[in-house]
Structure formats: C-alpha cells, structure tokens
C-alpha cells in the first residue's frame, strides 16, 4: 500500500511536469491553432541559461526567476520577429517554421554547451518526507507544489484579470477583439511569452531528474503531446488533468506491468495519442469542433 502511494506521488510529480508543458502547448494552440513543436527545445535552452547562471555563482532563487523572465521576453520577441510573418499562412507552414526553431535551439545548445550530460542543481531538499510509514521524495512533492501553484496563478490570470480576458477574447474572436481595441498581435506574443515561461519552469523542474543535455526535452514534449491530446488540446484544465493522469498511469505501468516497463513508455504515449485522436478527438475536456463544408 505504501509502495503504491509512493508510486502515485512520484507519478504525480512527473505528471505535473507533463501538465506544465502540455499547458504551454495549449496556450499557443488556443490562440493560433498550431502546435509549437519548439516548446520543448525552448524550455531546454532556458534551463541551460539557468545552469549557466548557477555556474557563475548566482544563487538559485535569483537564477530561476531570472531565467523565466528571459524565457518570457525571448519568446515575445521570437513571436514578433519570426512567427508573425507566417501568422496567416497555412498551418503546415507554421508547423515547419516551428520545426526550424526546434532544430535551431537544439543546435545552439549543442554549440554553446556541448552534448555532454550534466547534473542540474535541485532547489529542493534531498531528505525524504515521512508521512505515516511511507517516505515521499521532497523533490517530487516540491515539483507538484510549484507546478500546481503556477497553474493556479495562470488560471487566476485568465479568469480574473482584464489582460487575461483580452487574451482569451483575442484567441477566440480576433476580428471582434480588434474592433474593440484589443491589440490582437500583442496578445499572441504575450501568449508565446507565457507558454515559454511555463515551459521554462517545467524544464527547471525536470532537469535534476532527467539530467541536462540538448535532447532532454524531446521525450517530455511527446508526453506533453499525449497529455494535451488526452485532456483535449484546446482545454487548459484538460492539459493539467491529462498530464497528471499520464504521469501516474505511465509510472504505475512502469512499476507493475513488466511487459511495457520503462523502455516502451514513449511507444505507449504514441499509442495513447493515436487512440485518443482516432476515437475521441476532443479528448476528455475539449470542445468538439464542427465544420461547415
């Protein structure tokens, strides 16, 4: 029983990382109707920045917020300069442009920091936390707490602030919003910035676990795809629930189903994506779309 509880908590920890990445994808999907394939590599690059700051002797409680701020500003600039020219182009064009960004960030990280695997400092204590007879890793609990706090902050931002309202309006009804004085272009850029900030946070959380290297986010991105698809790709709540469910599910499968184990987790994620898209394309919480032909 204790072991099961520990597996579930550690699944919730990886799940909340998937949830953050999935939320980053959903934020951009809702505003532009595209998947930002570069989301994972942007997060990886930000994580390297934090590592660099820490190497220079900067304390983590300054380095991490600074990294997230840079990720935000960088993504706003990226949207304005690179994505804007293709905003109205066919989805495939935007997808390929995002792939270009993916390859570029991956290459830049390899160029600047090399391909050696590095350890990454964890902001959480290493002593386990005992509840009853079960011992939970403080890192796992820390990851869950940080992710839930940030996801809560984002939902408050969208629900309770005027800027959040303007962003939702710009995503759903760009033309009417423009008429009402919302600067739709800047709302998109802001969406990119927020997505990159959430992504950077998940990179910072996951790096102590998977270790820092230029390809570290590729698998995470696929799990985030699966989480977003599971929850419904236009639903922020769905992204979070999907991420947590996927984290717990994969962790339990890894621990108790030896046939799949840990080798086939990515394959399982691929299978989940296919099955959900085939049989319930709207996911658990997404809206069904109808199209007039």
């Amino acid at each position, binding site marked *: 029983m204790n072991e099961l509880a520990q597996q579930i908590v550690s699944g919730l920890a990886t799940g909340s990382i998937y949830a953050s990445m999935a939320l980053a994808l959903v934020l951009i999907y809702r505003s532009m109707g595209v998947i930002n394939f570069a989301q994972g590599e942007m997060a990886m690059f930000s994580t390297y920045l934090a590592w660099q700051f820490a190497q220079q002797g900067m304390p983590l409680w300054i380095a991490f917020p600074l990294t997230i701020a840079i990720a935000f500003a960088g993504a706003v600039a990226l949207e304005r300069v690179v994505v804007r020219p293709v905003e109205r182009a066919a989805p495939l064009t935007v997808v*390929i442009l995002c*792939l270009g960004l993916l390859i570029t960030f991956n290459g830049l990280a390899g160029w600047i920091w090399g391909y050696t695997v590095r350890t990454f400092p964890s902001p959480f204590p290493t002593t386990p936390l005992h509840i009853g007879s079960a011992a939970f890793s403080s890192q796992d609990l820390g990851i869950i707490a940080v992710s839930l706090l940030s996801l809560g902050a984002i939902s408050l931002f969208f629900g309770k602030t005027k800027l959040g309202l303007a962003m939702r309006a710009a995503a759903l009804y760009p033309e009417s919003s423009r008429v009402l004085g919302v600067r739709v272009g800047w709302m998109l850029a802001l969406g990119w910035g927020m997505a990159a900030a959430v992504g950077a946070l998940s990179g910072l959380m996951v790096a102590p676990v998977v270790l820092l290297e*230029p390809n570290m986010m590729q698998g995470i991105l696929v799990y985030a795809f699966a989480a977003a698809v599971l929850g419904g790709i236009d639903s922020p709540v769905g992204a979070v629930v999907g991420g947590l469910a996927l984290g717990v599910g994969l962790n339990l499968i890894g621990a108790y189903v030896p046939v799949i184990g840990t080798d086939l987790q990515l394959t399982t994620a691929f299978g989940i994506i296919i099955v959900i898209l085939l049989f319930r394309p709207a996911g658990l919480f997404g809206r069904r779309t109808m199209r007039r032909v």
Partner: protein
Amino acid sequence: MRVNKYWSVAVLALLVLVLPRFVPSYAAFELTFVGAYAIGILGLVILTGTNGQISLGHGAFFGIGGYAVAILAQKLGVPFWASVPLAAIVSGILGLGLGLVALRLEGVYLALATFALAVATPSTLKHFKSLTGGSQGLAVPSLSPPGPLHGVITSEQWLYYVTWVIAGALFLLTSIALGGRLGRALRAIRDNEVAAISFGVNPQRYKTFAFGWSAAYAGIAGAIVAIATGFVSPDTYTVALSLALVTGAVLGGIDTLWGALLGGVIVEFLPLLVQKINPAAPSVVYGIALVLFMIFLPGGIARSIQAVIHPLRLRREIHHARS
C-alpha cells in the same frame, strides 16, 4: 520547354554514369547517400508536397527498411536484390497502416502524431532485442560487384550504380504517375478535398495509398543507407533523421521532383560542409534555413530556380504560396 526537360534529364543521367571515373572512391560513397536520401525525400514530395499530408515520422520507415534488410540478410540469408524490394513492401504495408490512421487526423494533429512516432522509434527498436539486436544493432553484409565486374569497379562504385539505377527508375515512375490521373487526384485532394470528392475522387483511397507509397520509398532509402554503412542501430533513426528528411524536402522544394534531388544533395553535403565549424553547426544551419525559407521562399530552391528561368510562372507560384 519539354525538350529542355528531356535534355536536362539526359545530361544528369550521363553525369551520374561517368562521375565515379573522375571522383575519388569516398566521393562515390557520399553520392550513394545522396541517391538514397533523394529517394526518401521523393516519398515526402509525393505525400506532403503533392498530397498535402505532413509526416514528421518518415525516419521510422527509413529504419524499418534498414532493419528489414539487416534481418533478412542476417537471419534468413536473403540476397540484396530480393531484400530491398521486400524492405519496400514491409515499410509500404506499415505506411498503409499509418495512412489509415492519418485519414482521421488533419494538419497539425498528423504532424503531432508522426512526431511522436519519430521520437518513440529508437526506444521501441531497442526494446525488441531478439529481433533487432537491441542497442548494439545488427551488421549488414556489404554488396560486392557481380562476377564479370570484379576488380573492374570497387564495391563502393557498384553500390553507387545500383543506387542510382534504383533512384532513376523511381524518379521516372513517380514522374509518370504524378503527371497522370493519380497525380491530378492527389493534388486535387490537397487543394480542396470537398471539390475533389464532387469530381468523383475517393480521398480515403488515394490518401492511404499515398502514405503507403511514400513509406515504401523511405524504406528503400533506409535499406540502401543500411547496406552502405554496413550496420543498423536504433540511434541512427532518431527524430533528427525524420527532421533532416523534412528539411531536405522543404529546402529543395517539396512539390517538385527536382526538389527531392536537391534535397538529397543538401541532406548529405550540408552537414559535411559545416560540421567542420562545430558539430552542432548542421542543426543551426538547418534550423535557421527552415525558418528563413518558410518566411521568404516557401517553394524551396527548385521552385525559386524555376521562377528565375520562367518569370511568368513566378506570379502563379507566389499566388499559390499565399493561398
């Protein structure tokens, strides 16, 4: 214009024939890879350029072709001339399977699913150790020239000729098929599926077929590369390979046969050229080129050259790219 086309193909064929006489053996080896990548990218020209279905997972079919040849040769002793077509059939059938799934996924969703396939490929290959040899991979026997040519040409040169004969045949076949009814149907579905249906084109059948057809080409390309390198291992078939194929297709020109050929040249030589600067330089150059091409030259190099040669087409291309 027609005459022009035949001449350029004839000159190219002659060039392919005599080139090994004038370049060192390792260059013939590199040109073999150009041919193989061109075949793989030709598959993307059919699928993405002509039919409008994106695949970010063609590296997986590349891998299936490579592993098919390795397993057939090592475990069953099947000779080259039989194993390459079999590799094409195996990856073609799996491509048809993915094509059936792809029928229900559009645009971004298809990109997402095939990307997941590409990322999941190496760990899946590693898992089935008894068949794939796990992380070690499998050795692939090399191809030696037949009896009468023994000693006349090296085995690198022989593989070069075999590759380019296959490439030539596939390009010819594709050119004929895309120039006729099949090509028209595929393009009609890409441009307006509803209109295509009302003209009696069955999109399900054509789209599935395009996926299988294109996967078979990727399988052939993977088989040739496996024979040329002499081994297959899971880490060859990463998402980077899938992305390199897409990059080659986009930079070369995703909706022309010439684009596939140019793409093959780019995928083989661009990394060789820039990795002297830094091992990560190929990625940076690929990535930035993709971004710049999407913004400024969505038709790729081949379309841009055609626009220079035939200025009248330019306007039509711009119109096409914008719509």
